[in-house]
């Protein structure tokens, strides 16, 4: 399957078939670790399309608490491997108070601590590491 050419609907269906309910412990927007890697763990419980946006609904691995939504705008290049899920490119990503976006050769981030940019240097826009 050439994942780069998948439509959003096809990408969502591919993820439903391959990554739903898989536990993962690291969430990275490019190389920024949104949460401390493998301190907590999460599962995707639902995958939705909304216009040009893919919404990954995640819950804590323990089942405690409410679901959250990790949003990706215009994602391309999805891959699921034994190590986890990567999305090679996205215009923008958001989870809670953390946001990142493509800005030419760089990616920008906004966190509760502030805003700035780092070079992309080939990193995938999103990594969910098992």
């Amino acid at each position: 399957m050439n994942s780069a050419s998948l439509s959003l609907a096809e990408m969502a269906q591919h993820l439903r078939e391959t990554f739903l309910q898989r536990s993962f412990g690291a969430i990275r927007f490019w190389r920024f670790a949104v949460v401390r890697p493998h301190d907590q763990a999460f599962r995707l419980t639902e995958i939705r399309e909304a216009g040009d946006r893919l919404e990954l609904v995640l819950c804590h691995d323990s089942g405690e608490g409410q679901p959250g939504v990790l949003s990706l705008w215009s994602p391309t290049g999805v891959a699921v491997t034994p190590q986890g899920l990567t999305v090679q490119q996205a215009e923008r990503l958001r989870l809670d108070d953390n946001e990142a976006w493509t800005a030419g050769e760089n990616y920008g981030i906004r966190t509760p601590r502030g805003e700035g940019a780092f070079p992309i240097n080939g990193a995938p826009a999103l990594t969910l590491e098992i």
Partner: protein
Amino acid sequence: MKRFALATLTLALAASVQALELPPQLQGKAVVLDASQPDYGRAMVQNAVKPAGMGGVSEALVVRITEDIPVYRMWNGPDKRDARGNTNRLGGWWAYDAPVGSVGQYRSNYEICQTWNDLTWVAKCTLKAGAVVAIGPGQSVSAETCGDPTGKENYPANARDWQTFVDKPWARGSELSCPPDSADYRANPDDISKPLN
């Protein structure tokens, strides 16, 4: 190619395990497991060991605890919940050494980014005899991993203060026992071994 990379990683992990020794604090309280032993996989050491700049530990021993030991974790306290309504009292990263010094020293010693944890409260739990966990020296954390564009927030690797990795502790009640959070204390930021008055 993937098989070669996996074999290389396995050899690297095995080599690093041979280079480490059980720390004095755990002598007589834990035994080292090697990768051929059936319980080894329970430690999920592959989730603990990370490349430079990415946190976790730089190398690890997998150990079986043979005598109950206290383990400590700093967290955000009972009043701070994430967007999903959960606290971070339980998590994968612990220390078998009781917290000492200032909160800033602790953050640096254990390589914990500000966005990851406020480090305001201390929980003391018991790692039970029979638990299988990974321990090792802390790996460095880069400013990019922390999400600090100024480059100021980064932490070097620390061979002195080892971390204890308990994979998914919420599912391991027989291995990690915690009292109610009313037993925890809000730490004095200047001396986290003591409660804030």
